């Protein structure tokens, strides 16, 4: 291993450490977080897993346990980020998707809550809960971050 490679790996490690430290550091920027209860054995989810659960296509986490998605109301800025980044569809299409499922008896849309505060509180209480929010992650007991997307 020559010196330049060593320096490069050292920088990489430092960079990685910085990245990991970021959400908790003083200069933390807002991110988008998908969270579940800390007692849930699931540790990470892909965008498409999250999308499938929120669209009611699948009702369980990849490990087979029940998933209860919690949504934010339409006026929430977190919801907008969520629709753009994860669901990748318009509110109109979301609504007609759920109209199909409701009148099919094959599912009902995730319940909606007014603010991230309620979502975080519910997720920390219910093992099956799956929620999201956009903001700063404070140290919260009882939740696991499954996916994080930094703000653009």
């Amino acid at each position, binding site marked *: 291993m020559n010196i330049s490679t060593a320096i490069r790996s050292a920088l990489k490690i430092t960079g990685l450490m910085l990245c990991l430290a970021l959400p908790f550091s003083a200069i933390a920027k807002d991110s988008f977080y998908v969270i579940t209860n800390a007692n849930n054995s699931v540790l990470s989810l892909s965008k*498409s*897993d999250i*999308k*499938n659960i929120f669209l009611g*296509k*699948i*009702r*369980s986490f*990849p490990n*087979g*346990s*029940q*998933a209860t998605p919690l949504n934010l109301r339409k006026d929430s800025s977190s919801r907008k980020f969520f629709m753009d980044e994860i669901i990748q569809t318009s*509110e*109109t299409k*979301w*609504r*007609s998707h759920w*109209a*199909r499922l*409701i*009148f*099919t*008896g*094959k599912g*009902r849309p995730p319940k909606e809550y007014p603010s991230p505060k309620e979502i975080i509180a519910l997720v920390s209480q219910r093992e099956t809960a799956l929620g999201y929010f956009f903001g700063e992650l404070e140290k919260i007991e009882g939740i696991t971050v499954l996916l994080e997307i930094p703000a653009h």
Partner: protein
Amino acid sequence: MTANMASAFEKHYTYLLQDSRMRTPTMRFANIYLAPERLQQIVLLITLLVSPVSFAFDFEEQLQISGFLSFGAGITDAEPYPGGNNPNDPEDNNNSEEETPKYTAGSGRFILDDQLSFEQDTRAGIQFDFEIDEKTVATLQFVSKAAINNYDPELSWAYLSHQLLPDLTVRGGRFRLPIYLASDYLDVGLAYPWIRPPTEVYSTINMSNLTGVDLLYSVQIGDWIWSTQPFIGTSVFERGDFTAEFDNLYGISTTFTQDYFTFRLAYMEYEFSIEPWPFNDSHASLVDALLLVGLDELLEYHDPNQEITRFLTAGIQFAISQWTLQSEWARRKNPEGGPAVDGYYITLQYQWQRWHSHMTIAGRKELNEDDRFHSDLDQLIIISPTLAANFIAFNHAGIGTEDNESDSLTLGVSYSFSETMIGKLELSRIENKESTGFFEYATEDDINHILSFVIDVIF
């Protein structure tokens, strides 16, 4: 020729079921007709019944009410023609009254003619989902349509569903037969791009509700989700003078879906029967006459009782950015010698902001016209022209127009006023390939247009 009866009675069944001018039939299972004020009482009663289960009934948490409403109208440019040109065509009747061709969409019931009509495309429905516990839901759906029973609300669904595993649910009761892509939300206009789902496919089986049990199972396999829904049950139709039964009905519907792609396949079988048989006096004398001329085989051939009808359908949907391509195909095979029909449609949709447009081509083909129709008829004509004429008349009364060939092109544009309200405008060009196609009193190779609009709302 006689074998056509199987379909004839099936048609007759749907005709009677859906015709607004006849009194609505009573289904064996919970077919309750309600005045609007009764609806309120029933909801209240159900609320009271469900409440004790969950001590304090939390209205907002445990009851979900969803509804839909469509208000629309349509008109055709069809002009009367004299008719009776083709003596070999049992449906080509002499049109001395100069009746305007009526678009029946293969259902045997009136849908549209040359007067603007609001009856076909106007309807409303309300659905109550009562959450009994975390895993059990009771669902009731009431639908009100002019085209069926003059806007009297009808309890169209009533079932209990229970989640056995996160992705395995069992349902029991009365629900929609899950055979087409849009089967489950046929009445909910907002959920599909057209004003009415393409007739060429959606009328191959008109029976829509099933009393029985089904299972809903989904599993994720890599990027794909595989959902499957086996179902079993019966469908019964009773009227003063006869009962039509769809027994031993079972099938399976299965869907593979990925982010932008859906593939669906469904298969179903059922045993069709009519009681009494022969079902009226004129039919009885026809049967006697056929026996007299020694056409027992013909009789057996036309008796649909205890025969099995098979049905297969496939559909795909592919969505990429602003474009969606959707297509379905369906084939119905009736018992021995009965008509086999194929229907298909292809819809291409484009979305631009709040505007959507679609182009749909569709067609209906009869697969075995030659071997099931003319040879028997010719034989009968030689033996007894009068009997043959009776037979044709009898057959014609029941057959409706379903089994005729037709092609159509539809252009539609729609505008989303909001997420819950959409306005649609459509122009269809319908060409009859054989006989009267999807019209009554039309002619072979006739081309007619339909202009329609609708406002679809969900709440």
